[in-house]
């Protein structure tokens, strides 16, 4: 076996340039698989990781998600809230409201979404993951304070807003006490374009008692799903509709994300599969050329007593070595590419994505390379083994 290996290796070395190209072809295919999967896992981990931190939370919204858009049905009433308080297993309920308001700064008027809620809840929900660039977060008695999102501070007005700047919201004066960092992919919609007030101040300036959003925290994460169903039932009863409210646990959001990731993974696998098919055509081509070039050599081997199976195994070994090298190099290459891609994805999305290179992906990559090598080497190897000794020797 060792000798066969050496013999096969010798002929790979003999055709250095072509062997290197074939190895590279496979390496690129495998690298694509490894890199795409590793970045995929990293992305999934980054996103579900952030969501998991909030696993005890149920978001309750007056409306439903149709396709990709949220359709609002109205708003919650105080009765809805007091009904929720009667459901067992709930630790905490906080209500929020939001609406567009006219915001004025140095004679410029811009419509901006104003968000009001329990400051502690909002802190856990937005400040902890996104962070503040300037100033501090709202306190419960900050009736005249506001915290603004990154785009509100930097893009919406001619001048950049800072802490202690004064805004007029629907005619009421507020002072900026804090500015958010730029939110990442998950948060930018909710934070960057909004102004945050205490619940009381928001109700006042928006002139509303409407509750647009309720966040419920439960004691037991296991019970969240059941509690969410009960919440929907009670609120739907109150409004006489069977789909007025939507209560979503973080678990179901994570599941939703999981579905999305399955699709992404499928697409990535498709791309990688194409890369591999191209690579395997490359191996087959190399091996076929190798067989053709060595018609004479094969004939000589058979003339001096090599069996068909000897020739078959030699050529299969050769294509396996080539593809194995391609697999190993591809894994290393894929690793590097995954790191680079995840770095780029991190800067692009603002989300901290670290590529996760799983050992099983590496092993799988090498295994796939080997399988591809053996399968695409099989036809040329068989062709070689079927040659008659005299046919081959004649063309020497």
């Amino acid at each position, binding site marked *: 076996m060792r000798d066969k290996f050496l013999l096969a290796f*010798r002929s790979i070395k003999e055709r250095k340039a072509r062997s290197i190209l074939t190895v590279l072809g496979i390496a690129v295919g495998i690298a694509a698989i490894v890199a795409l999967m590793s970045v995929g896992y990293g992305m999934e981990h980054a996103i579900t990781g952030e969501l998991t931190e909030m696993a005890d939370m149920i978001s309750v919204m007056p409306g439903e998600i149709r396709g990709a858009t949220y359709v609002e049905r109205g708003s919650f009433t105080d009765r809805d809230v007091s009904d929720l308080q009667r459901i067992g297993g709930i630790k905490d309920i906080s209500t929020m409201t939001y609406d567009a308001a006219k915001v004025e700064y140095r004679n410029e008027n811009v419509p901006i979404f104003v968000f009001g809620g329990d400051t502690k809840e909002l802190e856990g929900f937005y400040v902890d993951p996104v962070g503040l660039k300037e100033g501090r977060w709202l306190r419960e008695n900050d009736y005249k304070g506001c915290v603004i999102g990154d785009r509100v501070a930097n893009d919406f007005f001619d001048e950049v807003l800072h802490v202690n700047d004064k805004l007029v919201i629907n005619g009421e004066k507020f002072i900026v006490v804090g500015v958010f960092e730029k939110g990442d992919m998950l948060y930018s919609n909710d934070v960057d374009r909004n102004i945050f007030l205490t619940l009381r101040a928001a109700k006042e300036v928006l002139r509303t008692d409407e509750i647009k959003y309720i966040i419920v925290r439960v004691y037991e994460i296991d019970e969240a799903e059941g509690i969410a169903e009960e919440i929907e039932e009670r609120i739907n009863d109150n409004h006489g509709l069977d789909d007025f409210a939507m209560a979503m646990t973080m678990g179901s959001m994570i599941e939703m994300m999981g579905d999305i990731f399955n699709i992404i993974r499928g697409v990535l696998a498709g791309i990688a599969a194409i890369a591999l098919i191209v690579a395997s055509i490359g191996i087959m081509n190399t091996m076929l050329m190798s067989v053709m070039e060595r018609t004479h050599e094969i004939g000589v081997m058979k003339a001096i007593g090599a069996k068909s199976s*000897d020739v078959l195994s030699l050529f299969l070994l050769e294509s396996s070595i080539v593809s194995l090298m391609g697999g190993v190099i591809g894994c290393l290459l894929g690793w590097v590419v995954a790191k680079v891609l995840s770095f780029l994805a991190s800067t692009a999305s603002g989300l901290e994505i670290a590529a996760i290179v799983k050992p099983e992906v590496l092993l799988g990559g090498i295994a796939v390379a080997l399988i591809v090598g053996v399968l695409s080497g099989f036809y040329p190897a068989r062709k070689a083994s079927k040659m*008659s*000794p005299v046919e081959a020797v004649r063309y020497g």
Partner: protein
Amino acid sequence: MIHTENLSKTYRMGEVEVQALRDVNLEIKDGEFIAIIGPSGSGKSTLLNLLGCLDKPTSGAVFIDGINTGKLSENALAEIRREKIGFIFQQFNLIHTLNALENVALPMFFAGVGREARLKKAEELLVKVGLGDRIYHKPSELSGGQQQRVAIARSLSNDPEVVIGDEPTGNVDTEAGDAIMDILEGLNRDEGRTIIVVTHDAEIAARAGRTKRMRDGKVLD
């Protein structure tokens, strides 16, 4: 040792048929040194290829040690080529990626001989053909005569009863040709091996114990 019964071979190239061998009945005895001569195209190579089990007859049969080779499987034929017959070609047919030692050891590799034993035997054989100082040379680093001597050493590696040479001196100069014939003669005289050579050279043919002449695919008496 080897005999043929009505051995015929027809090559077909599209519409054209060439009868390269017609009903050849030949008997070669154990330990014989036989030379086959004849003009180019008379079917000498075709005959040797059939005797050496490199090719299959269109009709008739080759018997080796009483066994009808036409009835053998591919693997059994490979085994005969490996164990019973040493073949020497006009073009040497060494494997150019392997050095002399590895070329000589190759048939033993296919026979499953261990590495140590293989290389030891190969070296002995190279010494025997006078190339003890060239064992690590690649074919491209050897002269034609030297390459043919490597090929002879290779043909002997599995200790065959028969050595078949198709114009073994055809591609080397007279001096190297004589050296090659000396070796073949020695194999016959000292070791009792059966030698079958095809040659153009009457002088070389004269060194054989028996000479057969071929013409138009027939062996003449």
